[in-house]
């Protein structure tokens, strides 16, 4: 069965409290095949491979390994069947060495308890497998000292040490540089030659056409498309991912031909920050922000986008530079100072920094303005708060339309709307949005983008921090390109080309 099917699923359903992540997925993986799974965030890609590798158990459905029905109840079961998962976030112990990490995976507690592990043997084993993934690092290196790319490769080496036949790679390329992706692909090709099968999850369509044999598209937990890569095209795959054409996906905001002359609402001059090793330092960042303008700040991971957003609300140590609001020099040392000036930063991580998930929609909406909303700043006015919440629920179309609904049970898109609602209720004039459409489903992305466009038309000033070039291009008046904490350029978005921005992101000046 050299070209046979090594793994097959039928009708895999996975229900989580409140959501159905997978709605009956049929899938097959052939021997020596790289099968790409693509889909938007929340499509169910990760859930699917986590089921195959025993991290989750399916609610319903069948898995066949070879010809036989397999029961995979936990990670050990999966490993025994030769299925292993290379996690999205490296699940390795950073305080242990490469060799120790691999030994843990291969021998588990048995080795530790029986004292079977001799150091020399261990190092030898590690070295052998590291060579197969083209890593020449000393196996005694602590994992925490490796880069993200190297750690990803160590995970692959670990899978090889387990002698896995089916290797699931969950978005392995997203934290990697172009060169590292190249290395990973070489390794994958070699493994394919050895007859191993791989499930390769990615959200970059171009990677599918570089490496995969077949591609499957998941959307909202349903398999919508499977095809050999040679018989399809990137645009067809994207269409299936989005469920619509690209143009519908990025609502284009009409930009005024001539800006009515007005003084800048926010002026940042030579802002330089020190992150003390916890992020990117900004160097000499300057820009103006006008009323009713969207300034897109485009940058990749590590460009300092988030640091810029946080610096504007006093959450970064500012070494030098000046901030002016309506022409007046201001000192902003906390988000509370910023809010008094009408500036609010909406963090990328809604669940960690944006919302209080245990609280209701109404409580979250009123949170920044609770003193103002209360009688004598102290006594809450429940009915008033409710009416405020209802107002925003209606105008932003928050679903379900219930002020007393717990925000933890809302979808990502609706959570983002609640964050927007609380900011607008707080009376802001400058909104700093950090990746506002990240990690929410397709429909909600479109809605949030329309809302952002609408805000600018109503006179709000928006700083849109994003890594999505198309998002910036379709919504912004001007685009600031940020590379390694420095401004690579501020461009007028009239007749601006996508390629010019991408060129600047890559370090080439436009």
């Amino acid at each position: 069965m050299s070209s046979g099917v090594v793994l097959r699923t039928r009708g895999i359903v996975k229900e989580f409290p409140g959501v159905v992540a997978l709605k009956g997925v049929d899938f097959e993986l052939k021997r020596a095949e790289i099968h790409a799974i693509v889909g938007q965030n929340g499509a169910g890609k990760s859930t699917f491979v986590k089921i195959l590798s025993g991290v989750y158990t399916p609610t319903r459905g069948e898995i066949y390994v070879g010809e036989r029905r397999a029961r995979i109840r936990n990670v050990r079961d999966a490993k025994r069947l030769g299925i292993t998962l290379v996690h999205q976030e490296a699940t390795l112990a950073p305080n242990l060495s490469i060799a120790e990490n691999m030994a843990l995976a291969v021998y588990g507690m048995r080795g530790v308890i029986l004292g079977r592990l001799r150091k020399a043997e261990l190092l030898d084993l590690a070295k052998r497998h590291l060579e197969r993934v083209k890593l020449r690092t000393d196996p005694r290196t602590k994992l925490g000292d490796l880069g993200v790319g190297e750690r990803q490769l160590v995970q692959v080496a670990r899978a090889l040490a387990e002698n896995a036949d089916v290797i699931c790679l969950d978005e392995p390329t997203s934290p990697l540089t172009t060169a590292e992706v190249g290395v990973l692909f070489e390794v994958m090709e070699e493994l394919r030659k050895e007859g191993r099968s791989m499930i390769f999850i990615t959200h970059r369509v171009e990677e599918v056409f570089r490496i995969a044999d077949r591609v499957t598209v998941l959307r909202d937990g349903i398999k919508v498309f499977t095809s050999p890569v040679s018989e399809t095209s990137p645009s067809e795959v994207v269409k299936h991912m989005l469920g619509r054409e690209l143009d519908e996906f990025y609502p284009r905001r009409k930009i005024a031909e001539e800006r009515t002359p007005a003084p800048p609402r926010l002026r940042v001059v030579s802002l330089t920050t020190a992150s003390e090793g916890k992020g990117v330092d900004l160097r000499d960042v300057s820009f103006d922000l006008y009323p009713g303008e969207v300034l897109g700040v485009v940058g990749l991971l590590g460009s300092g986008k988030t640091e810029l957003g946080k610096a504007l609300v006093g959450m970064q140590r500012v070494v030098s530079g000046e901030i002016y609001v309506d022409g007046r020099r201001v000192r902003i040392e906390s988000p509370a100072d910023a809010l008094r000036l009408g500036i609010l930063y909406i963090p990328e991580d809604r669940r960690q920094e944006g919302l209080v998930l245990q609280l209701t929609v109404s409580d979250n909406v009123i949170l920044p303005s609770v003193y103002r909303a209360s009688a004598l700043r102290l006594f809450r006015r429940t009915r008033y708060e409710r009416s405020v919440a209802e107002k925003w629920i209606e105008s932003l179309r928050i679903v379900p339309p219930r002020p007393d609904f717990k925000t933890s049970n809302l979808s990502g898109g609706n959570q983002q709307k609640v964050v927007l609602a609380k900011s607008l209720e707080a009376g802001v004039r400058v909104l700093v949005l950090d990746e506002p459409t990240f990690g929410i489903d397709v429909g909600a992305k479109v809605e949030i983008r329309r809302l952002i466009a609408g805000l600018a038309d109503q006179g709000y000033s928006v700083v849109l921090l994003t890594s999505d070039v198309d998002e910036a291009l379709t919504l912004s008046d001007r685009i600031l390109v940020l590379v390694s904490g420095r401004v690579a350029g501020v461009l007028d978005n009239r007749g601006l080309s996508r390629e010019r921005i991408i060129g600047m992101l890559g370090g080439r000046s436009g």
Partner: protein
Amino acid sequence: MGSALGALRNALRSLTAHELGGPLVALALLVAVSSALSPKFLEPYNQRILLLQTAPLALLALGESMVILMGSIDLSPGSTMALAGTVSAAVFTIYGLPLHAALAVGVLVGIAVGAVNGLLVTKARIPSFVATLASLVAGRGLVLVVTEGRPIVGLSPYRVFTGDVAGLPLMVWIFVAFGALNYAVLRKTSIGLLTYAIGGNEEAVRYSGVRVDVVKLINFSIAGGYYAIAGLMMNARLEVAYPWTGWGYELDAIASCVLGGIMLSGGVGSPLGPVLGAYMLTLLTNVLILLGVNPYLQWVVKGFVLVAAAVALTRGVRYAK
């Protein structure tokens, strides 16, 4: 039969879904078992003693819950209550201040200790565990300095607290009143919302442009005030201010919160939980004494109950989701 079981399960589910559900079930169980084990338990005299003993602990638990709900911890209740009690006793007996002034001094001392805790946590950026551990130690030291290690006697006027009003000691009414006040603060004021919000997600509240530090300072101070009232109650009950009053009570305060369904991770729990918890913890001691259980063993029993409460709490929360 099946539907009856289903109805029961639904009733249980809606009960566990409510914040106060778990504690109420536990309380009902404890009362049922206690009255079955000891006929004396439900007698009015015993219940009166029980409520009297609950009063100071209830105040400590209320204060502690203000801090725990923010996701912090306060180890200073025992020392703070002792310091407030002895300072109040000292100004009353030695400087001859009128009773109401002495009481006010006591409360102010508690608020001051709480404010110091709050400043250590917000301005000096010390974790609350360490900051309040320092207060626990230093506070007790101050008590010993004030009292020179000897009890302060002559506090019979404090007896007004233990005197009856409408059939129950004034002290009991005070703790009921503060329970109600605390409920109002947490549920009906801006500070209350912010308390829950900070416990739920401090970063989100900070980014919302709210001065988190101010709220923390206020809550630690309120907590200190509650501890002080507990200290004054002890003066009234014993009519003596002992330097070792409240030794180890911080643990009882925390345990009361846990029994009352307040999650130590912050942001979850009913404002009334701590009062219920304090009553249950006192009840447990009371019953074990009625049954003549070896007093040393009582600690062991308390430990087990605490573990059971914690387990039930985490499970309950999981079901509620």
